[in-house]
């Protein structure tokens, strides 16, 4: 007997999912708080970036492109017509992007073997290793940065050991350098790389790895042709999770970089402190936000691209 075409096929709706109705209204209190204390202020920053600086901080309500102009250019104090690149700011941009990329790379190089190590432990012990990675992730970032500062000090443990063993004659200047910032950021953000990598490896079908070996591939080739492509989503997610807080880092460069070795976050803060140029600070903040958004868009496209490939 032929079944009536109107009922045999077609998507059966999921009766477990209720239609929205008035339910979304329940989210309004939370959204209101976020609007007042998160999103709204962000929009005001955008507005402030187009105003004129006040004398002692704050702004004058006059439209001005000067804040954005000063992000990239500077005028000669004696000859305002003489415009040149603002190398001080551009250096900070370069340092910020370069250090963030290096941090991401270091985290990837250390994080991949670590995640693999955890993923290949017996299941009952995996939770413990995972917990060990997660603890630093949830403990105070300031304290972890402080711990690194203590190690790197002129009279810190590393220098003490180096001098005592005769490797160097006098303590090295380790603090307040790009190296210190890089070390600190890699240290504090490493768990953010390991966790998504582990999540990807946890889902990995090890029969595929076995198939690789079965088909005469060496360990290096299996790693390169089988494992890496399969855990790529974890790499992408981990890289984004490390890159975004690195690019916006404030505490770590402040504590380990000192006053001169600044990153973008410190440059922004400076405009609201001694710099007393709020519009410039607001414009710099917008630049930082744009970089972060670009990274997020890149991430979402990478993720959607992967999914598209899998579906296709």
């Amino acid at each position, binding site marked *: *007997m032929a*079944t*009536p075409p*109107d*009922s*045999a096929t*077609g*998507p*059966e*709706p999921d*009766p477990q999912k209720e239609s929205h109705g008035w339910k979304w209204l329940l989210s309004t209190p939370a959204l209101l708080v976020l609007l007042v204390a998160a999103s709204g202020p962000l929009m005001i920053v955008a507005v402030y970036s187009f105003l004129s600086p006040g004398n002692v901080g704050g702004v004058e309500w006059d439209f001005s492109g000067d804040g954005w102009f000063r992000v990239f250019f500077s005028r000669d104090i004696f000859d305002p017509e003489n415009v040149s690149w603002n190398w001080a700011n551009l250096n900070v941009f370069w340092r910020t992007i370069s250090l963030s990329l290096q941090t991401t790379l270091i985290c990837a190089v250390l994080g991949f073997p670590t995640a693999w190590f955890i993923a290949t432990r017996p299941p009952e012990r995996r939770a413990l290793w995972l917990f060990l990675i997660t603890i630093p992730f949830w403990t105070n970032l300031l304290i972890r940065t402080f711990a690194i500062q203590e190690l790197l000090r002129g009279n810190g443990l590393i220098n003490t050991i180096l001098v005592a063993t005769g490797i160097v004659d006098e303590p090295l200047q380790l603090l307040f350098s790009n190296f210190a910032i890089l070390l600190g950021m890699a240290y504090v953000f490493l768990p953010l790389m390991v966790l998504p990598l582990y999540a990807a490896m946890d889902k990995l079908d090890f029969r595929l790895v076995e198939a690789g070996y079965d088909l005469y591939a060496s360990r290096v080739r299996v790693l390169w042709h089988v494992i890496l492509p399969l855990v790529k989503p974890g790499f992408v997610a981990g890289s984004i999770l490390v890159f975004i807080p690195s690019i916006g880092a404030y505490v770590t460069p402040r504590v380990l970089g000192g006053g001169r070795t600044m990153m973008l976050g410190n440059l922004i803060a400076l405009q609201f402190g001694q710099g007393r140029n709020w519009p410039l600070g607001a414009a710099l903040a917008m630049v930082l936000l744009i970089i972060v958004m670009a990274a997020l868009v890149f991430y979402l496209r990478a993720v959607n691209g992967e999914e598209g490939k899998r579906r296709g």
Partner: protein
Amino acid sequence: MSVEIEITGLGKIFGQGAAAFRALSDINLSIGTGEFFTLLGPSGCGKTTLLRVIAGFESPSMGSLKINGDEVAAKGPNARPVNTVFQNYALFPHMSVAQNIGFGLKMLGKPKAEIDSTVAEMLRLVRMEAMADRKPSEISGGQQQRVALARALAPRPRVLLLDEPLSALDLKLRKEMQSELKRLQGETGITFVFVTHDQEEALTMSDRIAVMSAGRILQCGTPHDIYHAPTDRFVADFIGDTNFLTVPVAALDDQGATVTLPGGAQAAARLPEGMRPVTGEEVTAVIRPEQATLAEPGAGDMDGVVETSTFFGTDTHIHLKLADGQGFVLRRQNTADLAAPDPGSTLGIALGAGTLRILKD
């Protein structure tokens, strides 16, 4: 017997426009008070949707639904004198067995003393007195089943709906719960509407069965009627094993029709109500494998060549090929000294009187 549930012209459509899906079409049903009524069909046939509509979890798109004479189509589940035993039991994991059973009464605002005594009575009814303080996670699947039953029975609903309640149990437990359900129904006198895809379960337990497919009720009747007098090819195929024979009508009379069997012999066949085929028209006739018997070649109604035979313990299924190439399965009761027929040998097939039926389609 008074009518408990009266369903007329009921339909249910999910979604809208191009994505619309007609889950139930033109359902007309009348279920009597105290009846054990079963909705039977394969998965996706709409039986669970119909149950959810009766319970009030889905509202019908059209038609009327009366429970004890009250129109309830627009009422919520908490305003209907109906309780449900869910497929996965849906016991509240954070409440004890006793709290689960008392939940409905508590929501109805019954005084504590009444709740306590009813809970005790229900625990006795399902023989779970010793487990009153356990959490659902601390009792077995069969015990969870009993608690789900007790919880649904405690508010003394007019109708109890059971959504494949036995499907998660193993065979032995399922048999046990089947008789338990019958006992509970007898003791409480509540109308049971039972959903299952298991035809054997439906046949053994029900007073009446409605067979559903693709959102429609195809046939509604007693287990005996459904089994012996299927009016529809789907019903005949879904319930038990059936031989389908395509045969031409030789003659028609008041009682039924005479058809020409493969091999040329003629046999009487019953006609379903309202069907008047013309002479010479090809119709589908059905007969159950156990309703035919073996005979000497030429001595039965038709002959068949044995293809295979399969031993099932109590009986043997003999697969034969008829003169025109159609297949036929015959079920023969086994005795210790009966040997399986040789493949390739020709045997006669005798059809029992009045066992051949013509289907509607």
